[in-house]
C-alpha cells in the first residue's frame, strides 16, 4: 500500500539495519504462518507421538496428486491424523479413543472423508469377520451406547482401513470419537489388534474449513 507521501514502502531504501530488517521479516513469517493456521501461538506438544508411529502412519497414507493446487473458491483443506488412545483391550474387544482438537471442533468444519486405520494380526490362512462399533455418550448419563456399526471381512494380517460415514462429522464436531473393535460370532481364536508404537491405530480425515459457509452464501 502506498504511504501518505505517495512513496511505496517496497520501493525505498530499507530504513532499518540488516539485523533489524531480518528480525522484522522473521517475525512477519512467524505471524503469517500462525495466522493462516488460525493459531494464536505456536503449539506446545503435550502428548508427542513417537517417530515410529508417525512414520508408519505417513507410509499408510497417499498424498494428494502432485502439482494440484487447492481450489481458489473453497475453504482451506486439511488432512489430519489422530492417533488412538487404547482403553479397554482384551482378546474379545479393543476400544479406541480419539480426541480431536478444540479448534477442529469449531463451527464451519466439513469432514469430506475420514477413515480408521488399524493393524490386525491373524493366524495364517484364516479370515475373520470383524465388527466395528461407533460408540457415543447417551444424552442422559455417561454410559456409552452403540450409535452405528460396520462389519469388515479381514483376510490377512496387516493394516486395514475402514471408511467412516456421517459419524465422523459428528465426532469432529464433538471433539471425541470412541470405537470398539470385536470379532463377530464364535471364533476359536481371536485376532489381535496391535497398538504398539509402530502399529498404533489412527484416524485420518480430510476436512475443509469454511466450505459449507461459502456454499450456503452462494
Amino acid at each position, binding site marked *: 500500500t*502506498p504511504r501518505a507521501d505517495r512513496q*511505496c514502502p517496497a*520501493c525505498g531504501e530499507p530504513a532499518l539495519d540488516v539485523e533489524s530488517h531480518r528480525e522484522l521479516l522473521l517475525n512477519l513469517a512467524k505471524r503469517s504462518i500462525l495466522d493462516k493456521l488460525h493459531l494464536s501461538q505456536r*503449539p506446545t506438544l503435550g502428548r508427542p507421538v513417537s517417530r515410529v508411529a508417525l512414520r508408519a502412519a505417513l507410509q499408510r497414507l497417499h498424498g494428494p496428486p502432485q502439482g494440484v493446487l487447492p481450489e481458489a473458491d473453497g475453504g482451506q483443506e486439511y488432512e*489430519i491424523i489422530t492417533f488412538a488412545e487404547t482403553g479397554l483391550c482384551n482378546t474379545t474387544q479393543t476400544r479406541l479413543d480419539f480426541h480431536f482438537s478444540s479448534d477442529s471442533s469449531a463451527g464451519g468444519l466439513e469432514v469430506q472423508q475420514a477413515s480408521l486405520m488399524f493393524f490386525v494380526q491373524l493366524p495364517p490362512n484364516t479370515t475373520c469377520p470383524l465388527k466395528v462399533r461407533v460408540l457415543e455418550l447417551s444424552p442422559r448419563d455417561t454410559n456409552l451406547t452403540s450409535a452405528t456399526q460396520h462389519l469388515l471381512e479381514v483376510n490377512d494380517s496387516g493394516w486395514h482401513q475402514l471408511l467412516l460415514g456421517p459419524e465422523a462429522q459428528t465426532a469432529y464436531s464433538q471433539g471425541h470419537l470412541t470405537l470398539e473393535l470385536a470379532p463377530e460370532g464364535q471364533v476359536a481364536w481371536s485376532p489381535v489388534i496391535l497398538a504398539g508404537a509402530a502399529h498404533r491405530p489412527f484416524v485420518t480425515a480430510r476436512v475443509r474449513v469454511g466450505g459449507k459457509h461459502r456454499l450456503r452464501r452462494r
Partner: protein
Amino acid sequence: GIDCQGRSRMCCRQEFFVDFREIGWHDWIIQPEGYAMNFCTGQCPLHVAGMPGIAASFYTSVLNLLKVNTAAGTTRGSSCCVPTIRRPLSLLYYDRDSNIVKTDIPDMVVEACGCS
C-alpha cells in the same frame, strides 16, 4: 520476474528463507524444514507500472510511457513493487493436541515480483 542481484535498484524478488530449526519451530513443524518466504523490493518508475515481471514487450513499454505522459501530474508515485506470482506452502505439523495436520496454505511463497 527478476531476482535481486548486484546493485540493481529496480523491482525484483529477494530470496528469504526461514529455517524452522533456527527459530525453534522444528519440534512442531514436521515438514518442510523451512519456509522460502521471499519478498519484493526495489523501485517502480512509472513507465514500468502495470508490467508484471517488468520484462514485457517493447510495445507494452511504449504504451505504458504514453499512459504515464497522459496521466502525468495526477497519479505520480502510485506504483508498487508487489508479488505477481505466489504459490502455496505445504505444511505437516503437530497441533496443540498432538494431532498431525497437513495443509496447503495458499499464496505464501513469492515466486515473482512486478510493478503494480
